[in-house]
């Protein structure tokens, strides 16, 4: 897992908040949990229909203003509601083996391919090099 820091503009407090971000090259868009979206005043746009591994996902689109190093980017994202029962079994007969742990997006965001594409080649290479530390 590659973790970086980005700053996301908080439209309510009119300042940037430093957020830990998971780099997800397989995610088309950035993703933010609803409680973080609410606290930072992210706008709710139209619902979009996405594909994930085992089932489709419908989420509200939003626009994030992200600052990384010295530059600022406006990128699309989705707001995802972390289900209270996210530790549920995947199928009725499966016993969930995952440890009881906070949802990965409870305290961080995902930055997807659409953000990485905004960066310079050098910045992308630097970020991806964190994987082999």
């Amino acid at each position, binding site marked *: *897992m590659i*973790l*970086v*820091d*980005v*700053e996301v503009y*908080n439209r309510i407090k009119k300042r940037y*908040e*430093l*957020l*830990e971000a998971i780099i997800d090259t397989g995610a088309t868009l950035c993703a933010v949990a609803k*409680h*973080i979206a609410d*606290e*930072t005043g992210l706008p709710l746009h139209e619902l979009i229909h996405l594909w994930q*591994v085992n089932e489709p996902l419908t989420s509200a689109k939003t626009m994030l203003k992200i*600052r*990384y*190093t010295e530059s600022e980017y406006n990128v699309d994202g989705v707001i995802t509601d972390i289900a209270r029962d996210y530790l549920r079994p995947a199928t009725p007969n499966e016993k969930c083996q*995952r*440890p009881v*742990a*906070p949802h*990965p997006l*409870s*305290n*961080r965001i995902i930055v997807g391919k659409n953000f990485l594409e905004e960066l310079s080649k050098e910045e992308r290479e630097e970020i991806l090099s*964190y994987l082999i*530390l």
Partner: protein
Amino acid sequence: MGVESRKWINENIPNLRIKYPNKTIIVCEGKVVKVFDGAVDPIQINEVAREICEGKDWSYTFLSKDEEEYIL
């Protein structure tokens, strides 16, 4: 932005997971300056870090014992 603190976290994460299992830490200039139980709302972390790391390079992370094994 916490460029140096993030780098320090990424370099030390295996040891930090052992020392601070299932804790959230705030790191400021290469030192752990605050420890919380569990995962903490990042906006609250920003509030705390603004006070204790004012004007300094800082970062945070949650150190799950085994989270990475269960993320696709």
